């Protein structure tokens, strides 16, 4: 990472040095040339003056311009031409006219060649600075990680560089310090500012057992943390990789610009030759040389080639700062066509932390016994609902369960002391031939309160219900309202039963609900909705991966390290639906900027090149226009930052 930063800083410094030196020499050339041209003052006799200009221009072209010439002229051997090829040819030919005119009467462009190179170098300097600014947020991510860590080794606190921390090390983090790497709190309590990772402004409370993320800042207490992930495996490292990789991905709209960029330089070389020949036939040699040089130096593939990636860089940087990671550039273009946004319920609209709210038993079984059986069975499942029950029961000793099975989307089954138990939704019990008609009224009552009801049965006998509810996130309603006002069709999808789902949907203002969907069916439901337009799917990325993939835009969200960062086209590291509205907004604004940039880049070349061909533009003005074109595109992209997300 440091290597990369160094390359960029070195680049800016080198351009700056060349810029200063080039102008120190070029300004006297300008004074010499124009005092004669404009004021008619002859400072030197003409042949002496030509020699002086040639001597002065030499270092500008061949020393300060050396790397450009080397990179550009290589193109003539490898046939991989680039922007430098045009500048090299243009300036070298212009310089040579100064020598040729001693033997053959042609106009001398050698002074012009120095001016063109000096302007080129200036343009490059400004552009590299602006490019650096475009990536500033991403650079900040790179610098976010801690440099050192205080670890406990052999009972002693020692400070070591972060690279020497090993998994399992206990790290001590004092108030105000950066948490060096991902880990789990083993001792201490504190609140941690995670805004740099999630964009979430409120600090998060941490106590024993809480996961912490490297690069977040410990606020008020001392935390002892056991390192669980280091180096390239940390959450921050993953985010950086993801953001960087996104830079190289393509936005479809740039295809044409890329195609043009890839044939641009050879095409301009041919055009320049044609211009030269055309002017010789229909005009004169001097104009032919001037126009051909102007064509070479005015043409710049940079504006076209940079239009999209530079806007994408600024946009994704702005996103990263707010916990919105754009993984694939394509998503920002697709986003504008999205009509329907489908939300998974659990963990997306709701907090995803269900809690037991009611317990109802039938017959002579007492609640304690009922909970003991239920929790012993649920202990073996990883489902969030199971965890809620296990936490609620808080047993010291669990009963022994045999023949345990998870029935995905339905529930669980297992045997305790030779008795077979089922815990699950209505579908599970009905499939097992258990008649629920006597209990249906009770079930429906809880369901219409937005609770998920799990029925527990022993053999064919219903023992009772466990009701679990998952509260809605604070800003879900607001976010959904914003989206609906913008004209999006919002849909909630869940494995929960219809009544529970509708009760939750009502709370947040969603009218369309697709309930009782098995996990593997979610992507099919996305496909069905896609028949009437583009669909974005918002889910946790763990259970919803296929649906996220099937959707036109997949938005994965989660909090902290729980998140499946490899899923989805856009990843939200903060667990808030407002993030979805921001992501959509950011995508649209970024895409708008890309379109603007492409328009200017195309317009520039369409207008400028014919002007150069026609001989109207002097090579110096052509070069100024060229430099401005790429600076404009980069600066315009930087302006994206002014928009509110």
């Amino acid at each position: 990472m440091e290597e990369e930063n160094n390359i960029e800083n070195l680049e800016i410094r080198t351009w700056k040095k060349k810029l200063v030196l080039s102008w120190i020499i070029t300004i006297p050339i300008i004074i010499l040339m124009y005092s004669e041209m404009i004021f008619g003052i002859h400072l030197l006799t003409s042949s002496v003056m030509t020699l002086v200009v040639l001597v002065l221009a030499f270092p500008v072209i061949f020393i300060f311009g050396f790397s450009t010439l080397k990179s550009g002229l290589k193109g003539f051997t490898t046939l991989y031409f680039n922007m430098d090829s045009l500048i090299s040819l243009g300036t070298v030919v212009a310089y040579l006219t100064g020598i040729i005119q001693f033997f053959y009467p042609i106009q001398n462009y050698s002074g012009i060649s120095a001016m063109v190179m000096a302007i080129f170098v200036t343009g490059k300097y400004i552009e590299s600075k602006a490019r650096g600014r475009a990536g500033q947020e991403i650079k900040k991510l790179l610098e976010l990680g801690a440099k050192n860590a205080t670890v406990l080794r052999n009972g002693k606190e020692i400070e070591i560089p972060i690279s020497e921390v090993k998994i399992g090390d206990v790290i001590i983090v004092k108030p105000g310090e950066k948490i060096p790497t991902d880990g789990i709190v083993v001792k201490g309590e504190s609140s941690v500012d995670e805004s740099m990772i999630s964009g979430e402004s409120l600090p998060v409370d941490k106590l024993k057992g809480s996961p912490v993320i490297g690069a977040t800042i410990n606020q008020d207490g001392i935390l002892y943390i056991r390192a669980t992930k280091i180096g390239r495996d940390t959450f921050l490292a993953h985010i950086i990789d993801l953001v960087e990789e996104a830079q190289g991905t393509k936005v479809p709209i740039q295809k044409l610009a890329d195609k043009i960029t890839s044939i641009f330089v050879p095409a301009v070389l041919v055009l320049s030759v044609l211009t030269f020949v055309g002017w010789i036939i229909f005009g004169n040699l001097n104009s032919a040389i001037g126009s051909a040089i102007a064509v070479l130096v005015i043409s710049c593939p940079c504006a076209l080639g940079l239009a999209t990636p530079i806007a994408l860089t600024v946009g994704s940087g702005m996103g990263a700062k707010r916990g919105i990671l754009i993984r694939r550039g394509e998503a920002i273009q697709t986003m504008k066509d999205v009509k329907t946004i489908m939300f998974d319920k659990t963990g997306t609209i709701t907090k995803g932390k269900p809690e037991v709210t009611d317990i109802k038993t039938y017959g002579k079984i007492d609640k304690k016994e009922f909970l003991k059986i239920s929790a012993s069975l649920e202990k073996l499942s990883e489902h969030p609902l199971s965890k809620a029950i296990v936490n609620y029961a808080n047993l010291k000793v669990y009963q022994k369960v045999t023949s345990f099975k998870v029935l995905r989307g339905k529930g669980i089954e297992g045997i305790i002391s030779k008795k077979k138990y089922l815990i699950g939704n209505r579908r599970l019990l009905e499939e097992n031939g258990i008649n629920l008609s006597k209990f249906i009224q009770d079930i429906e009552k809880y369901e219409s309160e937005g609770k998920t009801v799990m029925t527990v049965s022993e053999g064919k006998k219903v023992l009772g219900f466990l009701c679990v509810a998952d509260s809605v996130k604070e800003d879900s309603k607001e976010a959904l309202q914003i989206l609906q006002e913008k004209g999006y069709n919002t849909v909630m999808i869940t494995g929960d039963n219809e009544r529970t789902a509708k009760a939750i949907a009502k709370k947040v203002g969603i009218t369309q609900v697709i309930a009782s969907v098995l996990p593997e069916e979610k992507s099919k439901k996305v496909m069905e909705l896609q028949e009437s337009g583009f669909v974005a799917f918002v889910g946790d990325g763990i259970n919803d991966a296929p649906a996220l993939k099937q959707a036109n835009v997949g938005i994965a969200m989660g909090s902290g390290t729980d998140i499946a960062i490899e899923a989805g086209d856009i990843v939200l590291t903060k667990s808030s639906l407002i993030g979805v509205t921001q992501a959509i907004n950011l995508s649209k604004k970024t895409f708008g900027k890309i379109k603007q940039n492409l328009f200017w880049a195309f317009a520039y070349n369409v207008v400028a090149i014919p002007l150069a061909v026609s001989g109207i533009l002097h090579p110096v003005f052509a070069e100024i226009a060229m430099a401005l074109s790429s600076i404009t595109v980069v600066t315009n992209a930087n302006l994206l930052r002014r928009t509110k997300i």
Partner: protein
Amino acid sequence: MKKKILIEGMTCASCAMNVERSLKKIEGIDEVGVSVLTNKAIVESENEISDDELKKAVSRAGYKTISIE
């Protein structure tokens, strides 16, 4: 397989296109993304492609490989 190549000498958008074009010529390569902004190329392929082969492709287009990871 996914590899990240840090490249020196890409000065403009057409340079990035050159590197991209050259890398795409490697047999078996699926996806190539080159960014002049990060000075990086990211290549993806089904089968392993040797670092040497990648380096060769970068230098064929006239640029220098600094590191591959």
